[in-house]
């Protein structure tokens, strides 16, 4: 089937670069690797990537690493373990970038997440609009320690 929108092949290659970073974020990547994946020069990759995604490939890679780091932190990994799992070289850099993106340090994020999960386990109805909980019959369950 012929693709009819303009510059279809360009879009495909930029998307390829993005998906490459989504999959290989934990590896040691540089702009050269990513540009090779998309069959672009580094200059063109940066320009086109920024036009489509509003970020340079490097900025996007940092974002992907930060987003994935949250999954590791939620699963209980230490900050240092998380840092190296997602491809950062230095805990200090990771912590600084995480705080810049999320507003809190990785350890505070982890603590806040654990506290929220504990509250969800103990009193889930505090997180569900009553209209839905009632329709589902969940408010009739007597084993929740609910405080009205």
């Amino acid at each position, binding site marked *: 089937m012929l693709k*009819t*929108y303009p*510059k*279809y092949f360009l*879009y*495909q290659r*930029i*998307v390829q670069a*993005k*998906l490459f970073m989504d999959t290989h974020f934990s590896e040691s990547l540089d702009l050269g690797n990513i540009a090779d994946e998309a069959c672009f020069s580094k200059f063109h990759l940066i320009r086109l990537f920024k036009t*489509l*995604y*509003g970020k340079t490939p490097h900025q996007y890679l940092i974002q992907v690493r930060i987003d994935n780091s949250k999954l590791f932190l939620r699963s209980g990994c230490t900050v240092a373990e998380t840092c190296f799992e997602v491809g950062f070289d230095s805990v200090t850099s990771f912590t600084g970038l995480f705080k810049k993106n999320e507003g809190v340090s990785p350890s505070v994020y982890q603590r806040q997440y654990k506290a929220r999960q504990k509250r*969800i386990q103990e009193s*889930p109805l505090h*997180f*569900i*609009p009553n209209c*839905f909980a*009632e*329709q*589902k*019959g*969940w408010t009739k*369950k007597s084993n929740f320690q609910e405080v009205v």
Partner: protein
Amino acid sequence: MITKMNHVSIFVLNQDHAFEFYVNKLGFKVHTDAPIGPGMRWLTVCPPDQPDLEISLMAIEKGMMFKEEAADQMRDLVKKGTFGFGVFQCNDLNATYEELKTKGVVFKKPPTKEFYAYEALFCDDSGNWFSLTEKPKE
């Protein structure tokens, strides 16, 4: 005075499969995933730039909300693609279309210039359809 909407519901055939679709394919974030009891789960996701809009992925099951016959009818209607639950927005429709297609999302309509916007239509894993439009360029 009403200021905004903070919850919206989408009926899905299976919450685990819907999780895989909305989180791993569309790239939405998990807002709340609360197990209520055996076979009962409150699951909400949100688009990346709208962390305070909870999209509830509601399982269609027999219970207080649906009698058995109504649940069967509802599942049938969802599978047939009866419901369009809303319009999503992206920065670049061609790039988003290519990416989602690569990830296996089924499109009913490719990017097309319409009066309203540049628009594509896709389906979730249950059969619900959505419009995907490109943010107007300033």
